[in-house]
């Protein structure tokens, strides 16, 4: 098994309370399914949408946000899967696609050469 990180991109707004609750329930069902199938290495964490950016030789500090709303990373999850194809396949169950968000699937670099 190899490890992969899912980076969830895109934040949702402007939806009714009922729709938000539905979306939450879909997320939890998806996470549970992945857990039950043994694919979750680490559930991960949500990330605040703001923060600081430290950059350059001068270590200049600027305020976030760092990206357009649709590109903001809202959280990550550490996944175990056979290969990249399976990790991609598993990500397709994520409810984020219903709100035009995206999942970035990145293999964790292996140490053995």
């Amino acid at each position, binding site marked *: 098994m190899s490890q992969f990180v899912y980076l969830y991109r895109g934040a*949702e*707004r402007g939806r009714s*309370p009922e729709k938000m*609750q539905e979306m939450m329930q879909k997320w939890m069902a998806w996470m549970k399914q992945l857990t039950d199938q043994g694919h979750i290495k680490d559930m991960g964490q949500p990330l605040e949408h703001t923060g600081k950016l430290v950059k350059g030789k001068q270590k200049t500090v600027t305020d976030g946000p760092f990206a357009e709303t649709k590109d903001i990373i809202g959280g990550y999850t550490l996944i175990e899967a056979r290969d990249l194809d399976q990790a991609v396949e598993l990500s397709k169950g994520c409810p984020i696609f219903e709100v035009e968000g995206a999942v970035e699937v990145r293999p964790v670099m292996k140490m053995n050469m």
Partner: protein
Amino acid sequence: MIDPSDHLFRREAGRMVATLTRIFGVHNLALAEDVVQDAFCRALEVWKFRGVPENPSAWLMATAKNRALDVLRRERTARTFAPELGQLLDSEWTVAPVVEELFGANAIKDDQLRMMFSCCHPRLPEEAQVALVLHILCGFSVNEIANAFVSRDAAIEKRISRAKKVLAGSKRLFDLAGADDFSGRLPAVHRALYLLFNEGYHGASPESAVRAELCQEAMRLTALLIEHPLAATPATHALAALMCLHAARLPGRVDASGSLISLFDQDRSRWDSRLVAEGQRFLDLSATGPELTQYHVEAAIAWVHATADRTEDTDWGKIVSLYNTLVTIRPSPVVALNRAIAIAQHEGPKRGLEEIRAIAGRDRLATYPFFHAALGEFEFHSGRYEIAREHFRAALAFARNPMERQFLEQRMGACEDAAPQRTAVARRQEAPVRRVVRHKGRGPG
């Protein structure tokens, strides 16, 4: 995990908006709505990784409270907040304790009541008041309200945004402490909740789940009135009784295939006896003053139906006399029609037809499907099946949803089956044979 049938977010939306509007001031309603949206986004982001907290309502409220404090501190100089709270929000000494207090359980109940009274502003037409209550206090989106009312999104959007302008322009939220204003505004609040309940009970949405939700929301808000000493009047109790006694019949109103069942054919063992008892209790509480409202009379009528074990046991004499009272308190062609139906049950279809002919403003019923259906039933029970069938056909043209349509088609089928053999055979070749249900008078109950 949250039970999917629990509309937690929707309910909490109403509580949060009411409280935040109390803090920010009614002119900042949009800001309050933004903060609520933020709280939900945050819940969604955090809960999906860490699971639903033990007390999700408290979590949401605490998030809204913290956000409110941020906004108050950040925008103190740029905005004015609730004039009612004066300087309390300006000083760092008082802002946190004041906000803490305003997020207390009892304060939140009062905030919802205050918002309910504010939404029933005399400058707003009744349908706008109902839409506003549903949107602000029940957390329904424009689209969900449009679905429930079988209206276009754009029409509801317009209605709500106009209503919000009136509300925001009213400068202050309704003052619950002003006793005169309170009793003056209470009837409008009753009326809005009554209309909300009716929309659920008789309304046009084909989805019975949507409609049951409207009934539940009306009952939840009425329960808030009952908890408040000034609002718990005999009329409020009568309204609560009316809702309970009608809601008790909801489980029997639709059959397994989703078709409406007439009051007379419902399986009464499916009625909710707990709600009947609750209704009875409210009805007793409503009989404590000299005031007799339409809610008292309608609740009493519902009580007679709810407590008859079998259709045959219904005390029609009592129902007729209650309708006689109702037409004097709240005269309307629909009430007169229902009275005529009760009279037909009590004294026969011929009397029913006479009463219908005597209804003042009868032409206003021309597009009401159950006006034609009532004529159909009276003719049917007089043995004039062909004429009855034409009335049901007329009713069909005005049916407001598939359930009503199906119900009326069944009645047309019953007319064909009851008509002389030759005609029935000829008719059957035109239309598929329908299930025949035994029916007496009156539309679906």
